[in-house]
């Protein structure tokens, strides 16, 4: 059974239809990349998956882990194992990174009937993941994302992902605003999490990220529809020819 099954998904924001019939199947262990020009609906797709309220699904269905994702609240989807690495991580003043992340992990554990972790058990886990992303320990006690540089915010997203160990990782333009060194660190963190039980949907505008996180499948999203799907070589072709090249061809949405 596939982990994610998106069928004929239509979604709108403020009554503007952004997604116009997406079909996509993602199995455990696979990494799919969604590429596309600005305004094609990439972030909307990521947002719909994370159950953002401002996006209205008007048609279609999404099955996640055998359940109807569209019936879930954002926190339910998170507890079910869906993680969104934000394009613009949000600042939460006055709440430390460590406190926030432990609250998140415990909320998820609780929903699964697992015991909550106390600070003594949690901190070593968090420290380990922070080392992986080469983040200084001082970030433990800094308020969530407050005063972080763009690169630090993105690395912090991946730290959270590593701690929460989701089944599906949705990375929304994680490469934007990263210099090449930070990009390599982030990619290392993401790659360390690839395994046969976990799937990833990597949303990106540029092929650059895919040099470091090599996808199994690449889908090209244009004007709310997947117009082309292929292997990693498709990303290179896009880099060479630009998005306008795909628009000429009819859609072959399913892989």
């Amino acid at each position, binding site marked *: 059974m596939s982990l994610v099954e998106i069928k004929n998904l239509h979604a709108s924001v403020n009554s503007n239809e952004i997604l116009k019939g997406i079909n996509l199947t993602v199995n455990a262990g696979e990494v799919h990349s969604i590429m596309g020009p600005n305004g094609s609906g990439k972030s909307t797709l990521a947002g719909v998956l*994370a159950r*953002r*309220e*401002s996006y209205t699904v008007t048609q279609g269905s999404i099955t996640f882990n055998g359940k109807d994702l569209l019936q879930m*609240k*954002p*926190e339910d*989807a*998170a*507890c079910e194992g869906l*993680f*969104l690495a*934000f394009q613009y*991580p*949000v*600042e*939460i*003043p*006055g*709440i430390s990174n460590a406190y*926030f*992340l432990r*609250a*998140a*992990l415990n*909320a*998820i554990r609780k*929903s699964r009937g697992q015991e909550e972790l106390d600070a003594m058990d949690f901190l070593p886990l968090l420290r380990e993941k922070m080392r992986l992303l080469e983040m200084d320990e001082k970030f433990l006690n800094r*308020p969530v994302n407050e005063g972080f540089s763009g690169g630090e915010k993105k690395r912090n997203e991946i730290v*959270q992902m590593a701690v*929460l160990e989701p089944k599906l990782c949705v990375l929304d333009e994680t490469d934007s605003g990263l210099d090449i060194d930070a990009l390599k660190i982030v990619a290392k963190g993401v790659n360390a999490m690839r395994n046969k039980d976990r799937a990833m949907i990597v949303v990106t505008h540029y092929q650059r990220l895919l040099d470091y996180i090599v996808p199994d499948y690449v889908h090209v999203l244009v004007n709310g529809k997947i117009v082309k799907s292929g292997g990693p070589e498709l990303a290179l072709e896009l880099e060479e020819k630009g998005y306008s090249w795909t628009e000429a061809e009819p859609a072959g949405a399913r892989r």
Partner: protein
Amino acid sequence: MSTTDQIKDIAKQEYKWGFITDVDEDRLPPGLNEDVVRAISAKKEEPEFMTEWRLKSYRFWATQETSHAEPEWANVKYPPIDYQGLSYYSAPKQKKQLSSLEEVDPEILKTYAKLGIPLHEQKLLAGVAVDAVFDSVSVATTFKAKLSELGIIFCSFSEAVKNHPDLVKKYLGTVVPYTDNFFAALNSAVFSDGSFVYVPKGVRCPMELSTYFRINAQNTGQFERTLIIADEGAYVSYLEGCTAPVRDENQLHAAVVELIAHDNATIKYSTVQNWYPGDKEGKGGIYNFVTKRGKCLGKNSKISWTQVETGSAITWKYPSCILQGDNSVGEFYSVALTNNYQQADTGTKMIHIGKNTTSTIVSKGISAGHGQNTYRGMVKILKGATGARNYTQCDSLLIGDKCGAHTFPYIEVKNSTARMEHEASTSKIGEDQIFYLQQRGISKEEAVAMIINGFCKTVFRELPMEFAVEAQKLLSISLEGSVG
């Protein structure tokens, strides 16, 4: 369910501590005149000087009342109060002095139990001495023995008048004279009881002193009077926390708190105020018109106010510091929350008189529902206050689109060496923030509580540990049902 709806739900939560205790009351008929003032004084078996002071206060108040001098400058609205329709004294009937808790009226003890006030062993373990004020008369005082070994006096105001008249006479009204304002004058005339603390020279009070106030008798304005004196080099931390039962009619509360810090002394005064705010339509609720002021009389003295105000229909309160001694320090840390139809006009005054005096103001206002939240602050640097410094930070957080946040900072500088900093911000609680936390598995309700607690962090960390925990819970409860 949208965020707005959920937060509305939180806001809709009923006041949790609405219940009424039946206790035989000894009360005066409604109305206020010189005879009533004399009667109050007589009931309390007060010495002559006290009666006279009350009468002077009453006469001043009476001129104020007839000239309609009740203050109207505050950004709050309420129907006129019929001062002659209130009863000015009520006390649980008790003939003899009590020596142990067993002698306390079981009904009263039950009320404490419902409120979760651990008057017995728990407090012993926690190291908190409690002077419980139940409808104006102290019914029990603990820890007195331990404190008195150190020469610390911690008792009800009535007891202080009887047993330490010299101290009362010396300090009463020296920080808040009865002519100060309409409500202070009223309080001075009819105050029922309150707390008195004196910490002698060089003594550091080893425990947090705590008093729980509770308004109980219907239609009885409660007029608390608190006086705290820290002598040279002394230190004391005082906690005040309150809850009150549900009532239909508005209840007037006009307290006066005076603090005096001598050379090198420190007074820390923390409040968690959770009086009945009225129902969802704004009916009922306490009118909380309080005058709180501290005087840093000696050099290097320090007075620090921390308040978490979540209750009352109307709050009118400006805990202030008169920085008279050189190098003295004044602090004001405040969280004020208004939900439904609550109104708060609160802030502080920092009056810099001595040299190198420093003041810090951190105010966090949260408005939800139809709540109106006003920060009103004054920083005044007098001519002789060379080297004075002030830092003010004033943040407002709005939840929903029917509430309001208002800021009125007044700054008056008469010495050019002064350094002033003022930061202010107003923000709406962000859908983005809530979604971010939800995406990590945290429920919407917890997300809102977390964001609010983060917003208030700089104030909460000034509170004693157990008070801080209580304050966080209180904010979550007060906001249940309101975010958008």
